[in-house]
């Protein structure tokens, strides 16, 4: 291939990618800059960067709705779900990857099949259960039904299967019991899988909307996404406040993604390939 031709191709590639990236990132750019515009500027002919930044939009948006409480609830819910996934999914994955018992493959396939069940086929009786347990408007309703998930089991099981069985057998000969083998030997080696499960579980919990919408009605237990939805319908005519609220709700997930993106994308690709 001649050099000018290769250079032209590289340039073309960058131009296309740049155009696509601009399209994809534009809503974020508008979100951020609108959140810093003054009200009389938001409806003017479109322009991206405001002449002066209205930082006061943020304290005003924060004061207009109980964002601190929403935030706290989201953190509590996400922490509970992440901890639940790390413990329950790991235990189940260990049994499915390292122990021999009848029906092991059937149980695993059954679990994977539940991943295909659409939410709406389960949400009504699940809601009914929460009511019967007396959990409506409580952290229990937000956390307990989602303490375990199949995605985490699949990821951790896949990782455990890639570790040599000799590890377990050597440890067993040294007198370690199964829980010691799992927690002292296998899990320290499984950090990449555990990190990617933790991040995905956090993203899921932080961004979750339907379930918290159904099982809470009180601001005392409502999460940030519910808060943002309510804020949207209330402050629709005030895009500058609205976008400030949106930034507040979206930032933690984006920040965590930016921080851990490499392991996240890799873990995701690995699971997809296995499926």
């Amino acid at each position, binding site marked *: 291939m001649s050099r000018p031709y290769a250079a032209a*191709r590289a340039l073309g*590639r960058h131009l*296309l*990618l740049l155009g*696509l990236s601009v399209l*994809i*990132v534009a*809503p*974020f750019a*508008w*979100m951020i800059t609108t959140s810093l515009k003054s009200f009389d500027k938001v*409806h*003017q*002919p*479109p322009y991206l960067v405001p002449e002066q930044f209205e930082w006061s939009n943020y304290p005003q948006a924060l004061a207009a709705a109980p964002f601190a409480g929403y935030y706290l609830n989201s953190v509590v819910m996400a922490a509970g779900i992440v901890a*639940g996934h790390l*413990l*329950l*999914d790991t*235990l*189940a994955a260990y049994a*499915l990857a390292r*122990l021999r*018992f*009848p029906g092991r493959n059937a*149980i695993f396939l059954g679990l994977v099949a*539940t991943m*295909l*069940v*659409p*939410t*709406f*086929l*389960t949400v*009504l*009786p699940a809601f009914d*259960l929460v009511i019967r347990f007396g959990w409506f408007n409580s952290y229990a309703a937000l956390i307990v*039904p989602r303490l*375990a998930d*199949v995605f985490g089991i699949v990821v951790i099981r896949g990782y455990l299967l890639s570790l040599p069985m*000799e590890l377990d057998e050597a440890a*067993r000969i040294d*007198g370690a*019991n199964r829980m010691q083998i799992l927690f002292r030997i296998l899990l320290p080696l499984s950090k990449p899988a555990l990190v990617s499960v933790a991040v995905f579980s956090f993203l899921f919990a932080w*961004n979750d*909307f339907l379930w918290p919408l159904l099982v809470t009605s009180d601001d005392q237990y409502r999460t940030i*996404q519910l808060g*943002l939805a309510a804020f*949207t319908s209330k402050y629709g005519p005030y895009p500058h406040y609205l976008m400030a609220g949106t930034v507040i*709700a*979206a930032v933690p997930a*984006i920040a965590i*993604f930016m921080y851990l*993106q490499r392991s996240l*994308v890799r873990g*995701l*690709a690995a699971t*997809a*390939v296995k*499926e």
Partner: protein
Amino acid sequence: MGVRDRTAEVGRGPSTPITHPAVQRAGAAPRRVRRSYRRGDLITAALCLAPALLVIGLFVVYPLVATGLLSLTSWDGISPDRPFVGLDNYGKLMADPAFRNSMVVTVLYGLGVSVLSVITGVGAAALLNSAFRGRAVYRTAFFLPVVTSSIAAAAVWRYLFDVSGPVNSALEQVGLGETNWLGDPHLALVSLTLLTVWKQLGLNTVLYLTAMQALPAQVYEAAALDGAGPWQRMRHITLPLLAPMTFFVVVQALVVTFQSFDLVYQLTAGGPMGGTEVVGFLVYRTAFVTGQFGYGATIAYAGFALVFALTWIQWRLGGKDQT
């Protein structure tokens, strides 16, 4: 537990190859002969699996069955008695224009999102599929919408595509008239489709990238020697070899659209005039807004069965020659 386990290991060190004839034969007839289970394994496995199975059983498996039973009642979701009405709800469904509308909307939405997801996913992955500077930056940019909450993403789109929003004022600047993106039923579905594709693009790109990186390099070298240009290689080698991933991406897109609720809730709330009322949103509205819990379950059951069937037929009829 430890002591018993070690006695079971007697005669077979950790790395000794398995030489017992019974075990060797197991390769030929795997079901007939097998090592007996260790008791410790059974007990530990039961204890380890119990918590996860309890949660998933109680909140996924049981509800899946219970929704079917619920669909045979006219329960309102609150009162203690749940009147059994047999298949009445299913009869009601046939004549319900809201249900028919949601079916049409869901199928159009599912088709739109899957077709556009494949096109944009393959395109973006093809652009990213070689080593060059700045690749990671693009990939990050593409992935941003995936990790953003649907509620936040739709809040921004709702503002951008408002009648008097930035998109319209930009169009006016270049001389195009005002478009009521979210106020017209058809355009609202188009906007919802675009929003969904935008949100999923990064995921599909990463999936296709993974698949492309696993493609055999020799085939490309041979094709290049035979004089196949980049476009021909894409058309005749890459796309056919990517078929399994395309299947995965389409299934993923369909699952996303069947589940779609947050985006719809925040962008259009199912409107205008039901233009974006996908089946999931109709289930929510029926059960939780109008208080017809039993009928909501019927819509969920019948709706998903129908949408799956329709999509499958469409897939068989139209999808065969594409791959």
